[in-house]
């Protein structure tokens, strides 16, 4: 990891007792991120749900590996620290963790996991996004479509968590990271692992008819629990009134364009048309990352969000600090939440192109 991890961009706030209780009920503790993300309830729910390993088809070991490798690849100090600590708590072999840190290609993993991690890393880097050939290679190892969809969802989940954590520079979870260093840890590790390691979830068909922004991407997850989380997250993010809906649609559109996701760009265009922006202005914004019809804040944010697609953590933290100067803390948190979500959805859409 190059460059220092910055000071957190947003102050710690005291979450409401109800919010704290809900998070504790779901994940068994009140993590440090809650105090930073609390001003935006939809993002709190997303963080909470993603922390509970919402997978019905992919093995926990595989999704854990994906989270570790993607967090390392994204140089996310916060998420990588958490994942590493969880690996130790869950009882993974220390030598395996060390080998994974060096290079998962030579970590002695079975072919299926190695190819899945290759796919996950390509999807996370999205330079370019993996295509049919990568999907076919993964399928040829024997992984079923539902498992591959959850591997892609695990990447999307890490995309959200890594970006939010990196852009606002979430302080490391030192309490969690220090657990494996406690002398008695080896004795209590089996109990902790049993307590913290969730069993595989049951499939969860979508409650509604699947309409809304990104409907086809959500549908590509089938009845995986991730589909319901993604549907709710997108809907609540767009409904939230912290930032104007038009601004959020612009952020979705620019990230879709940057990642070459034709489907997501079309969806974002539809949102912008519904917000009263005409086709000509949308074309102008997407061609030039600017337009006289944008408001002052949009004129700053639109060219900025392309930088969140691929970044070096120190640079993006500096840039996020620059562009959010003068914004309220809840606006900053919603901004990083929306750009992280847009990055995740545009990556996840490979399931449409590749299948």
């Amino acid at each position, binding site marked *: 990891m190059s460059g220092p991890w910055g000071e957190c961009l947003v102050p710690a706030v005291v979450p409401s007792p109800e919010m704290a209780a809900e998070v504790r009920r779901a994940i068994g503790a009140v993590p440090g991120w809650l105090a930073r993300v609390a001003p935006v309830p939809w993002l709190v729910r997303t963080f909470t749900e993603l922390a509970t390993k919402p997978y019905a088809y992919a093995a926990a070991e595989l999704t854990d590996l994906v989270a570790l490798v993607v967090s390392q690849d994204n140089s996310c100090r916060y998420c990588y620290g958490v994942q590493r600590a969880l690996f130790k708590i869950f009882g993974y072999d220390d030598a395996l963790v060390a080998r994974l840190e*060096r290079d998962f290609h030579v970590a002695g993993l079975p072919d299926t996991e190695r190819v899945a991690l290759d796919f996950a890393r390509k999807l996370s880097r999205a*330079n370019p996004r993996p295509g049919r050939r990568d999907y076919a290679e993964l399928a040829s190892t024997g992984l079923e479509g539902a498992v591959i969809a959850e591997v892609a969802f695990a990447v999307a989940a890490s995309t959200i968590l890594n970006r939010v954590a990196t852009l606002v520079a979430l302080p490391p979870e030192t309490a969690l990271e220090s657990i494996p260093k406690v002398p008695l840890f080896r004795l209590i590790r089996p109990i902790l692992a049993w307590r913290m390691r969730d069993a595989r979830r049951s499939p969860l068909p979508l409650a509604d008819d699947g309409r809304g922004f990104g409907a086809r991407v959500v549908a590509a997850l089938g009845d995986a629990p991730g589909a319901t989380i993604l549907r709710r997250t997108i809907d609540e993010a767009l409904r939230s009134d912290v930032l104007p809906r038009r601004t959020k649609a612009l952020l979705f559109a620019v990230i879709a364009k940057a990642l070459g996701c034709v489907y997501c760009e079309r969806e974002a265009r539809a949102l912008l048309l519904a917000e009263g922006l005409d086709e000509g202005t949308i074309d102008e914004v997407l061609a*030039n990352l*600017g337009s006289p019809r944008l408001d002052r804040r949009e004129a700053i944010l639109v060219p900025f969000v392309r930088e969140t697609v*691929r970044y070096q953590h120190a640079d993006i933290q500096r840039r996020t600090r620059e562009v959010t100067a003068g914004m309220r803390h809840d606006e900053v948190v919603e901004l990083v939440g929306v750009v992280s979500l847009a990055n995740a959805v545009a990556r996840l859409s490979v399931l449409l192109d590749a299948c």
Partner: protein
Amino acid sequence: MLWLVVAVLAAALVALARRGRRTIAQLERRLEGSSRELEALQHAFSRFAPAEVVEDIIAQGVSTHAEKKEITVLFADLKGFTAMSERLDPAELLMILNEYFERMSRVITTHRGHVSKFIGDGILALFGALDANPWQTNDAVRAAFAMQASLAELNVRLAADQRPTLAMGIGIHRGVVVAGVIGSAELVEYGVIGSTVNVASRVQELTRIHGVDVLVTAAVRERLDPRVTVRALPAVAVKGLPEPVPTFTVAPDDGF
């Protein structure tokens, strides 16, 4: 006696085990060191070639894999530098040239381009070659404006030090190139070939004829932000191209 033999054997086994552990620890440390070096190299190489090309090279060695890409090429050259180089002390000349390259490279990287090579006092920079970039043309033109501004700053300092100042012409063209790892077994580089590169170079030469600092082609103009003021210039015949080339001089407007 038997106990003594057992004790000696046990001690020997313990010593062997300790030595084995030490050797393993040493090997692991070396492996970790090599792995870090490899990661650092991979990171460094990603500035010169697309990440996937770097990964392919690491996994399979140098291959002849090549692909067609639409990119934007910026060619910059110092005006009158050859005459200046004959007047100046070699050390002073190199100091000025290196500072110029340093500044221009920084500006190009900031605007998401990458310096493909230095050719004498010329710079060949590519936009959209390493990462897919739908805004590559505007990035290249922004880079050109920023390069001129940076050169103006450098000139203030050179003038204050009573050194000769520099003037630079920039040509920008957009088109399809063949990109890949090019070279011999001893020396390879990630590069691009095709007429797009030649056109950018020829357009740069036209800055002297038209007396302007930055010139772009019609392919660039088509995709240019309307906030850039564009003025058409007469088409001029250039070496290697069948038709005279129409070019446009550009200037930044408010907000670009």
